[in-house]
């Protein structure tokens, strides 16, 4: 099993969510995060005092999946989240040893 983590632009969340649903994914976790990559921040001005905000708001999506679905899911997310401009985000995959469904106690693939 794998954990797919994607950090994307917030306005792309709906598209990614819908694409994942269409693919048959039920469980996703969304977190509001901020970070910095190659996208530069912006400047805010308060009575002449300029503040550079270098951490930009992003959304983190986490999806657990079977090994064989991993590439497809990554592609789905990348396709839905792309704008072609700087700051679109990143997707990465990490191995997962086990998953337990809290309600039933099922393990592994059947817990997804």
């Amino acid at each position: 099993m794998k954990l797919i983590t994607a950090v994307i632009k917030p306005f792309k969340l709906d598209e990614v969510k819908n694409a994942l649903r269409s693919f048959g994914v039920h469980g996703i976790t969304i977190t509001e995060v901020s970070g910095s990559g190659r996208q530069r921040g912006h400047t805010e001005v308060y009575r002449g005092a300029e503040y550079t905000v270098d951490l930009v708001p992003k959304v983190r999506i986490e999806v657990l999946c079977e090994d064989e679905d991993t590439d497809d899911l990554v592609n789905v997310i990348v396709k839905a989240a792309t704008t072609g401009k700087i700051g679109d985000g990143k997707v990465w995959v990490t191995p997962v040893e086990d998953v337990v469904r809290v309600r039933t106690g099922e393990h592994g693939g059947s817990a997804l």
Partner: protein
Amino acid sequence: MPSAFNSGDTAWVLASSAMVLLMTPALAFFYGGMVRAKSVLNMLMMNFIAIAVVTVAWVLYGWSVAFGNVGAGKGGGNGLWGGLHQWALHDIGMGFGTSPGGGAAGGGSLFGTTGVPTIAVVCFQLMFAIITPALISGAIADRTKFVGWTVYVAAWVTIVYFPVAHWVFSPNGFIFWKLHVMDFAGGTAVEINSGAAGLAMALVLGKRIGYRRDPMRPHNVPLVMLGAGLLWFGWFGFNAGSALAANGQASMVFVNTQIAGCTAMVGWLIAEKIQHGTFTSLGAASGAIAGLVAITGSCASVSPLGALFVGLIAGFVCCYAVNLKHRFGFDDSLDVVGVHLVGGIVGVLLIGLFATKEMAGGFINGARAGLFYGGGFTQLGRQAEGAGIVFLYSFVLSLLLGFAVHKTIGLRISAEAEVEGIDGAEHSETAYDWGRLAGSLRTALTDHDEHAAKQPVQGGESVST
């Protein structure tokens, strides 16, 4: 002396008093939005406590010191203070009289012309006494001991505000009567006075930890705009109420107040666009306040055309003036100097340029028209003199008083408390519960711990339920 109450005038003065009181909570929110989230309650409290402390001081002796000898007649008294014979509003009663044993039958009506009972004027002027020290709090945000501040406010109104109010507002105060300075609603007594004290206190307290290194952006700009809006509303009471009558002068002052707030907002936004390439909300709010500050002294001496210029100039100048603290290296947290001191000076000096004969002649005995209306430089010189005297008196005494409180009771919180947040350190509160989850999680954990502690222990294990 009026033989009867003028109910219209009295109603206007009482309504204005309530409007001016509202300015202090409004100021609290104007300032409160500009500080960081960890300091907002302390900012509100510094202003709210001023309402309580100053009211008590005003009733006990403040009114008497500021207006106590009005009954002596114009030019009477020593010009410096009103004495203590009306302590605790002694013998003022519900009539017009202002001298001891006065009441309705007493000698001399307040300011000679009004049908407003003296106690209503006591109430109106009290609100001015409250907001003036409250204004200072903006210069020392985030780092001032609450007890030290409270004592400072009580002492400051006693030795600075009450005498200055006498000089400027009382018909026998020396700035009003001898120097012929025009200051209708407090350009000197309120704005320059509090601005100079703000500068002094910023110097006494020193810079905030992390000043010009850490971001200290306003935590809630909508709160700033709400506060500014409420201040604007209250300002009509402040300025137009100062006519102490519901008449033509009050109406003209009302209009001038509105005009200056608007042109100053435009002026500030233009200056901001030139300097930083953007129009900010904080700039719009600050600009409006700068214009209202400037028109405070001049609202009864300039024409509507003059008010347009007073506001525009004040907005423009104050936008540049807020950079003074960076240039001179003092930490006036919320720009009391840039907005109130500079705005006050601009407004008071512009009287010397824009005062019209019609407006000026109707107000003070001996007042002259401004330079642009054929009065020459005479009135400009008088205005500068009045502004300078109030600035120097306020700055020097505020500085001495600040050091005195700092060395005895203490005025600055510990570095640890300042970094962690003055709200928690001084008031054991925080303004916002940030964590939707964190709050319930903490409750759940606390409940669990209490629950576990109450369980009977069997065989070294707690019984689960």
